[in-house]
């Protein structure tokens, strides 16, 4: 297969790790080589977090570097803007439009930048920005934002609905399966 590099970015605690686990499962089931690099520890505490997912016939580096990402899947608007340099020419950013204020904004030391989506588009980059929180809340929880995003993302990837459902069943605790499947469907059809 053509090598594919995806970055999943967001704020610690938003559920980015489940998203990377699910993507890893999808590509593993396809028989691809795959590497997923995560960040644990201090930076998880509400900080900016990033997960790298790379797949292909042979994957060497566990990390995606600047100018390499085919897709950036972002859980938050400012984080989408922050990781723009990692997008390759012709790549696509898919982002939740939700804004979460970082501490410098909360303390008044900085302002949350306005018009970020327009600025990203002005750079000539492909951007798919949408509100993933509302469909997540309709599915039962703000925590389902990750599945809403993955549902939307599924429209850009060549996997069948059955393949996605298998991966979701394999990665999500049984008690939350229905909610997550609903969230994924909402994302896919939004």
């Amino acid at each position: 297969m053509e090598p594919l590099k995806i970055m999943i970015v967001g704020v610690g605690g938003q559920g980015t790790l489940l998203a990377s686990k699910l993507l890893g499962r999808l590509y593993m089931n396809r028989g691809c080589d795959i590497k997923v690099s995560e960040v644990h520890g201090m930076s998880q505490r509400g900080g900016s977090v990033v997960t790298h997912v790379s797949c292909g016939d042979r994957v060497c580096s566990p990390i995606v570097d600047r100018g390499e990402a085919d897709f950036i899947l972002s859980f938050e608007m400012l984080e989408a803007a922050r990781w723009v340099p990692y997008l390759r020419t012709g790549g696509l950013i898919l982002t939740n439009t939700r804004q979460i204020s970082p501490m410098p904004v909360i303390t008044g030391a900085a302002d949350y930048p306005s018009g970020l989506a327009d600025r990203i588009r002005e750079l000539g980059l492909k951007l798919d920005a949408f509100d993933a929180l509302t469909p997540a809340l309709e599915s039962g929880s703000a925590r389902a934002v990750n599945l809403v995003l993955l549902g939307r993302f599924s429209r850009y990837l060549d996997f069948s609905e059955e393949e996605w459902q298998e991966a979701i069943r394999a990665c999500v605790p049984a008690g939350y399966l229905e909610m997550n499947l609903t969230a994924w469907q909402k994302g896919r059809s939004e």
Partner: protein
Amino acid sequence: MKQLMSGNEAFARGLYEAGCCYVSSYPGTPSTEITEQAARYPEMYAEWAPNEKVALESCFGASLGGRRAFCGMKHVGLNVAADPLFTLSYTGISAGVVIAVADDPGMHSSQNEQDSRWYARASKLPMLEPSDSLEAKEFTKLAFELSETFDTPVLIRICMRVAHSKSLVETGDRREPERRPYAKDPSKYVMMPGFAIRRHPIVEKRQADLAEYAETSPLNQIEDGRDHSRGILTAATSYQYVKEALGDRYPVLKLGMTHPVPAQMIRNFAAEVGELVVVEELDPILENECRTLGLSVRGKDLFSCLGELSPNIIREKLGDGAPSCTALEQALPGRPPVLCPGCPHRGLFYTLKRNRLTVFGDIGCYTLGATAPLSAMDTTLCMGASISGLHGYLKTAGPEAASRTVAVIGDSTFLHSGVTGLINVAYNESPATVIILDNSITGMTGHQQNPATGYNLKGDPCTKIDLEALCRAAGIRRVRVVDPYDLEECDRAVKEELAAAEPSVIISRRPCALLKYVKHAAPLAVDTDSCVGCRSCMQIGCPALSFEDGHAVVDSGQCVGCGVCSQLCYFGALS
């Protein structure tokens, strides 16, 4: 069947397949999950020790008891375990002993960027370095074989990008060696001078034997390349970056065993290529090995000893340059990690800030108390250093210092190496005020049990250490407990203990808000009619609070109803 495993999961799988029976570690990012995952195999006994030194010493005992033993730690943990490490090199082992040390180039979750490869050289022990999850598993199994063949503990160094990266692993079955019966041998295991002096030549001979083994070991491999004008010597994740950036352009000598190095193999490789380049993260260790062999080599003149390497850095120095990329012109606000909503440390740090105290800090989630807007920490050095640092400070900083200086330390860190500092405070009589932030868990590394939680690694109830009694037994007469959600109580306790002429301990006790058993109150709401926009509540840096259109806003998705902010509101607008 292939499975997608992190390096740490694969490491644990390697322990299982190698027939390891004893695992003892202290948590430390990025090593923690090796031991957590090992605990999921019922065939292996696994425990959290109070610190790395205890863990490694207990592995020595487990080895003498006849079973393969493992101990894992982060890079700075090996500093704590260095004392037994250096002499374990002399005694050797009975059943195999493997020690994992996890470095953190880039300091994703650490206080320094030290390179553990120095330890292999200083302690004269073999060191293996896997470059992905499959190697983490296979090298672990081989390490036990080497340990028993050469009568030595074996170090395996991983870095954060191996520990926390997932790749495909083919699993195998467990093979448990027979128990090795204990045989009394003081000349090997009692390291007093008369015996130790006869062990040193054995250590040197073992180094030579291992160096010979390295020449033909499957751990070290040459991969040919199209262009012999340059050859690359590399190891671990740097190898993966080289292959990603350059493919099979240049020949590569990949070392899976980085101490001792295969001298002849490196010489032969150098003779086959034009320019020899060493690609390694952190210090120029393999580069220095090459220079010692009299080889002309490039390395740190191209690659920094700061932070992580990446494919683009290698493309820029040895390839066709990094791909183009773009960025927004405008500077974006950073998003540093923060104390969580409802974090019990927040109220206590607010109290310290309000009283304008000098704070000797320590290692844990609560180190985030140093960040704005709380900014209530003056020092962070290493595990346990808050209490001992405060003691020294009070001996030199003048008589007023005792009334405006405290130490803060977490429950797990206190038991790791803070308690010895407290004994020093009592014994050598400094009027220190020590605050133990008891959140009933080892928090930063992801919720590990410790001797103060009442549960062991497997989650079973066990003996729970009594922190108050421990402090009293150390010689501290003034010991009191406060609830950090109660700002008035915290303020009173801190003022009273600072005024006392003798040492005291305040235990700030409330479980971490992220623990599953902690019940949260309903989220607070802002009465916008009462809120005058004074920003008083914003002083505590709670991520659930923001400020919009002239008044405070509570994010009900994040707020856990701890009520600390409402105690700061003069107008009763938060309830």
